[in-house]
């Protein structure tokens, strides 16, 4: 049986792709499935840091693709989460070190031994993006509730459709309920009305993310982290469970409006 490859992408930089990839990967692995996280941001690797695995890197993705090393040898087991492995990016190379065909073969290979392959995509629409999506079955598009990020998300969704990665999921990251309430921030309804894609989850702006990133422990492992709980719910939805989107956010009547987006079928 073959697993599912999901690419986490955004267009605009710094909106939370790496944070999402790490937490979704960890969240999935914590509830049973085996997960390989692939850092496809060659030259700007981050995923190892967020997972606290930087000091264990011996081989990287480029070594594997160039045939110098078996993929199993390059994969790093997570310290605390048994089912989670990381394939780190090369830091001293750039996006042109691999081709989409090579990434496709690599992803296909990983799907043989893992239930989920989560790919952390670099920002932009150039070769790094093309590499990361080459072997993906599905895509998660991350945006923040800012017009510039939403526009870039729209562009990325169009490009994903053209590359036959259909029906992307959307994550709205760094929502601040207080700002939305004051109408100082786009609300999720407007955002979905514009992008017309399926909402996978809403993650609050939460300083626990910064603390967990610095510690190298994914927020999903911290029961008190609101963002962590939102990512756990997202992982659960990816596994096909019907988790209401409002559940992890503050008991605020404004958020209950999200619940209606859950009715959309998951293809």
């Amino acid at each position, binding site marked *: 049986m073959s697993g599912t490859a999901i690419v986490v992408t955004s267009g605009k930089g710094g909106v939370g792709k790496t944070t999402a990839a790490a937490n979704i990967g960890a969240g999935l692995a914590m509830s049973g499935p085996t997960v390989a996280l692939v850092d496809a941001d060659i030259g700007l690797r981050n995923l190892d840091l967020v997972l606290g695995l930087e000091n264990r890197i011996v081989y990287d993705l480029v070594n594997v693709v160039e045939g110098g090393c078996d993929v199993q040898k390059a994969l790093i087991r997570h310290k605390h989460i048994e089912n989670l492995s990381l394939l780190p990016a090369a830091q001293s190379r750039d996006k042109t070190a691999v081709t989409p065909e090579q990434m496709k073969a690599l992803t296909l290979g990983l799907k043989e031994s893992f239930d989920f392959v989560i790919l952390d995509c670099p920002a932009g629409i150039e070769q790094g993006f093309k590499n990361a999506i080459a072997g993906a079955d599905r895509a998660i598009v991350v945006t923040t509730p800012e017009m510039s990020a939403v526009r870039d998300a*729209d*562009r990325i969704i*169009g490009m994903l459709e053209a590359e036959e990665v259909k029906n992307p999921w959307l994550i709205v990251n760094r929502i601040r309920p207080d700002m939305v309430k004051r109408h100082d921030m786009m609300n999720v309804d407007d955002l979905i009305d514009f992008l*017309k894609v399926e909402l996978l989850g809403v993650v609050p702006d939460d300083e626990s993310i910064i603390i967990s990133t610095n510690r190298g422990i994914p927020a999903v492992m911290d029961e008190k982290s609101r963002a962590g709980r939102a990512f756990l719910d997202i992982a659960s939805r990816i596994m096909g469970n019907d988790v209401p989107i409002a559940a992890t956010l503050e008991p605020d009547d404004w958020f209950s409006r999200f619940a209606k987006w859950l009715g959309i079928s998951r293809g």
Partner: protein
Amino acid sequence: MKAQEVIFKGTRDGLRLVIDADENIEELKGKLRRRLNEAEGFYSGARVRLDTRGAVVPPEWIEEVRMILEEYGLSLSEEKPGQRRPRQHAAGAGRASAKKVLDDGGPESGEPIVRGDTILVRRTLRSGQAVSFDGNVVVMGDVNPGSEVLATGDIVVFGSLRGMAHAGSAGNAEACVVALRLIPTQLRIADKITRAPDDETQVPQGPEVAYLREGSIVIEPWTTHTGTVLV
């Protein structure tokens, strides 16, 4: 003026690929690839007729072009350049192949369908995507900011028009733009350009039409009565 680029043209006989036979083949191939990359799969599945504007090109050229087109999921019509098919057969020449239509016939899917002098685009145009057509354009979906619709005739958007639309792009001052929600970043009709006022926040309640009256673009609620005024 610069020599004509490689362009795709929707015509009454289907999709045409117009190339400049004076270019060298390597340049031409580069331009064609760039076009197809920009289109991001938009033309995928379409049949294309090569138009060399009457020039005779070596058969190797046509082979090279065919190979690139096929790489991007298009096919080259067998017919020799310059040789026109009778109208009744040619009407569907720009249409997606039958298989593709059966595969994913949903309203969100799909390649553009050319019928007569109108192209039907059955999907949302997202940022960075564009449709340009020698005739009328109907979009069943939204036209998002950062995307463009160009038509020598009318433009009809069955959705929200938030991007750029240019009707009558070859100078037809009778052309109009109709949309269920007409909130474009910019609107052009023939040689006139308008944009929304910077403080405009009101969203129109219903479908609207934009057309030229006494040399300036006016926007009015769409009623069937408006249609008769326009004729």
